[in-house]
């Protein structure tokens, strides 16, 4: 019972955090599909890298 409660609280915290993060990213213009500044190049470089170093 206790364990379920803790798990449930963690889950709820995590969901809340995810929501806040999502909102903040929206407010600050950070999204893979809409932010097309250099951030995305950075992102791409990481992904490009994943192609090279497999």
């Amino acid at each position, binding site marked *: 019972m206790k364990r379920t409660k803790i798990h449930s609280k963690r889950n709820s915290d995590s969901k809340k955090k995810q929501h806040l993060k999502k909102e903040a*990213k929206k407010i600050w213009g950070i999204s893979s599909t809409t932010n*097309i500044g250099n*951030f995305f190049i950075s992102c791409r470089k990481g992904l490009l890298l*994943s192609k090279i170093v497999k």
Partner: protein
Amino acid sequence: MKTILASVPPWYPNQPYLSIPLLTGILRNEGYRVYQRDINLSFFDNLLSEKELVTQFSSITQNSLSEKEKSLYTLKDYFINNVFLMKSQLRDLSFYKNKIALKETFEDIDLILKTYQLNYNDLNISLGYIEYNFNHFNPNTIIKYIDDSNNLFKYYFEKYELDYLLEIIPDIFGISITIPEQLIPALSFAKIIKQYSPPTKILLGGDYISRIYEKFVKNNFFDELYDFILIGETEESIKILFKTFFDKNNNIFDNVPNLIWKDKSNKTHINNKESISKYSNNVYPDFDGLELDKYFTPKFIIPIEVSKGCYWGKCKFCEIAGKQYFQKTSNSLLKEIKFLSAKYNTNYFSFVSSAPSPKLLKILSNLLIKENIKIYWSAMLRLEPYIDNKFAETLYNGGMKLAMIGIESGSQKTLDAMNKGLSIKNNNKILRLLSRNNIFTHCYFMLNYENEDVFEQKKTFEFIQNNRKYINSLSITDYVKPIFKENDLNNFNIYLDNSLPKTNTLIQSNRYFIEDKNPIFHINTYLVINA
């Protein structure tokens, strides 16, 4: 006889910028004691640290924040508690298999870096990039920021780099300035170096400074913040400079080509420019002293130079057009690769040259295959008509995993106007060949070349659409012709006049990507394609 050579932010911190290790190798080979610092790497590493985030958040009063700023502040604990893990993930090869998580980590890191905007609202920092919320091409606004007490780079250097400087007290502190955004950090550091270590001479070099030095000298900009500027290729001239400075203890530097220097009366001299006449490959880049395990990459990828200039050299938009082309021999490259691979225990290389000859890459590939050397590399590739299936197969078997290709346009009219020397038909064909041979392709496109009309621009989007299966990623740049305003000092821009109105409202943004065959287009692209 001590020297520090440093690269400064912003640059993407996944590998050292080659010029510093290359010059370090050259100078160490000449017997000079050189310390190299990748301040760009340490900058992003420290900004993304628990300790620094705690410091930043502790100086923020929550009540004074706007709603936008509060959205970051509420994530304070999450940022502080997870930032170390996020950096570790970017350095962990297994994490790269989970693309969704990888993407989220990149976004989270970017979000964390926005935190610095709460204290330093003149800057907008992303991983590897800094945007200035003022005109960073204008010397007046540049100097204003450098002198500002709320200068992040001043804060950073005094906190993280000053002890190192004072421990070494170098005779020369060399700073590489490759892109416009690095000028402010470089000059901010130079000012602190002059303040805390007055005898240290400041040496500036790099691509950007080589383009704008005349403006510096003519207008006495930032005059007190540098002692020497080396322009262009510096491999030979830096040796002469150091010999004159250290060995002869001379104050007269008129024998050093490509050097800007000041005499005892503080008069500035611009020495003769000399192009390199030979391409020596006797000295390899030396990465010793850099924190190679701290780069934001799961594997250390060694940058090496394959060639200088462009063997085609006729594209009208290109800044290296007309310059002489040099290339290393395949045997010397093989020797260099073997040496560096063994020394730094990595099989990953990026050939950082602008336009190596595909024929050279093929010969090198054959050598690597013959000697059974398993390395993986990326390079720029011009889609020459002689590239056939066998050619592409050889490149792949020789280790080419990523080809970076300047396609430029889907319009033959535009390609011809650029003097690109390649046809659309040819580009279509070779992209397919590369894809068939599992070479990952990243393609560069350019819109608005010499006010290209919308009809021709659409052809580029059609080209992308038609080649979706064969283009793995791409970037699109809006062509802006550099224009100098000589007489208007209030609006004086050192290099690019970015205040020019964009003539083409279709292009609101400049980069679009296709990823793993699933297009992630910017909405404007859809508008263009579906128009």
